[in-house]
């Protein structure tokens, strides 16, 4: 399987006041296309930082970060913004939907950046909502949906522009066990049946079991790898 994400000697440090805090220390890692990786580790281990770098939300201090053949560590902020729009889907712990928009409005949002016609956008939105099993809740606003349904809408928003890569930050952290299992099954389906490469940060070992493999980070370095 070809490599989608190639990370070489990646470091990331932040300025906290006068102090320089190095969060990732020379990380090297490959994630092939179609993989489903769970990133685990204690708080402060650097897993969210790594996820942000992979998702193009932040830029590394040094090292190489290549995604689908593109050195995104060399991208400018504007280039990263453009790249994110068509290459990455994001799923957050607290869903982060727009409360003023309906489910379909939220899912359509990323498509406003494309040149698709209104009719084509509507069609894509309907498909995405159908994939996550929420076609009948399209006209509902987030406050009218349960947590699990909100997360499904967020997943539909993440996949509507058909990106290769999904990055998920604690996608089940705010859900009960049963709903979490449903969401994780949905992510698994997206990975297995739709070929999405998924990188997921989680604290929950049961959630990690849905991934193909788990990477443990500790103090900014890769500590352990386990296949499921």
């Amino acid at each position, binding site marked *: 399987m070809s490599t989608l994400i190639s990370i070489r000697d990646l470091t990331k440090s932040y300025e906290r006041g006068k102090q320089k805090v190095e969060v990732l220390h020379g990380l090297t890692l490959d994630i092939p296309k179609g993989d489903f990786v769970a990133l685990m580790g204690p708080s402060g281990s650097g897993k969210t930082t790594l996820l942000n770098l992979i998702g193009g939300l932040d830029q590394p201090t040094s090292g190489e970060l290549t995604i689908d053949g593109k050195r995104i560590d060399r991208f400018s902020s*504007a280039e990263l*913004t453009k790249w994110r729009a068509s290459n990455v889907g994001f799923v*957050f712990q607290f869903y*982060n939907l727009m409360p003023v*928009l309906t489910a379909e409005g939220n899912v359509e*949002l*990323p498509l*406003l950046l494309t040149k698709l016609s209104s009719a084509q956008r509507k069609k894509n939105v309907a498909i995405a909502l159908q994939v996550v099993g929420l076609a009948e809740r399209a006209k509902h606003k987030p406050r009218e949906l349960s947590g699990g349904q909100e997360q499904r809408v967020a997943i539909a928003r993440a996949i509507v522009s058909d990106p290769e890569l999904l990055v998920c930050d604690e996608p089940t952290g705010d859900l009960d066990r049963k709903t979490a299992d449903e969401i994780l099954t949905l992510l698994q389906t997206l990975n297995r049946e739709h070929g999405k490469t998924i990188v997921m940060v989680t604290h929950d070992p049961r959630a990690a079991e849905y991934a193909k493999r788990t990477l443990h980070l500790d103090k900014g370095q890769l500590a352990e790898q386990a296949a499921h």
Partner: protein
Amino acid sequence: MTKTGFVIANLFRKKTRTVLTLLSVIMAFLLFGLLQAVNVMFNAGTDFVGATRLITQSRVSFTQSLPLRQLPELEAVPGVEAVMYEQWFGGVWQENTQLIAFAVDPERLHKVYPEWTMPEDAWKKFAQTRTGMIAGRQVAKQFGWKVGEKLPIKSSIFPQKDGSKAWSFDLVGIYDGKDEEWQRQTSQIFINFAYFDEANQFGSGRAGIYVLKLGDPDKAKDVALTIDKKYENSTEETKTQTEKDWNAGFAKQMGDIGMLVRWILFAVFFTLLLVVGNTMAQSVRERIPELAVLKTLGFSDGSVLGFVLAEALLIVGAGGLIGLSLATGLGILVQKNAGAMLPISVDWRVWSAGLIAIAVVGTVVGLLPALRAQRLKIVDALAGR
């Protein structure tokens, strides 16, 4: 959904707050429209007339009259094409409705002010009827006067020889303006000077001012200098100025209305900036994570700035347009009721100033929150830092 739809949806995330903000903007622009219209009204004369006419008044004050013996001397000044004289009558209709009334020589008025139009028959009748009077279309319409009526008009200044201030005039004509702008000025009435001069108790042979029509506007300055020099050190010293300056001076007798209006508007808009600015800032503060998500999804910094700025412009624009429309309606109502005495009109000048104000206020209140949104760092905003 469209980007515009998204902006509108965001505006109504807190309906009560949006409606209250909108109301404050509407009130501000309603006030702006009306006050600006008042300002335009007080400046109308100064913008309206050119230097094709000069006005000669007593050097002491325009309330001091000048002798009519100066008339042929003024007519003889090179560059002067025609001269008329007029006297403020201080007209009062019915109980206490003030009229803008002047005693004039009809033929001279016709010559010096060709902008006032009326059938030649009516001009002739005005000249031939000693108790004749003509009224502008606006004032006649306001009081429902019709040609042929005998109108009792009091003078707040001039009693007749029998001591009575109640005069009576025959309405022999209703005049119009040559174009829309002059038509709006048809709020004056003119009575026959010959009758006034003979019948008033304060004596005859004097007029309040002379109005000189010039053959060549370029010679206005020379003519004015010649006239004032001619009467220098005499008992009837004169002050000759353009009609524009004279009108400005006359308006200033009522106080610096423009300055007053400007200060009120400054207070109104300063408050508006604080109210709407605070609302916008609060609105952006409340949805930092949402703005960060927009950037995460691929909306550029400029797009996010645009969304916030568009919200500010939309709320100020909607409120401003509603406010100005209300002011226009109120202006029409006021004009209908007060008529010639308060000819305020929320016209294109007021609307132009209003539209500029909308753009400026919208940009100013939206810019700081929009810049904050633009500079937002996704990682920090999502982490709640």
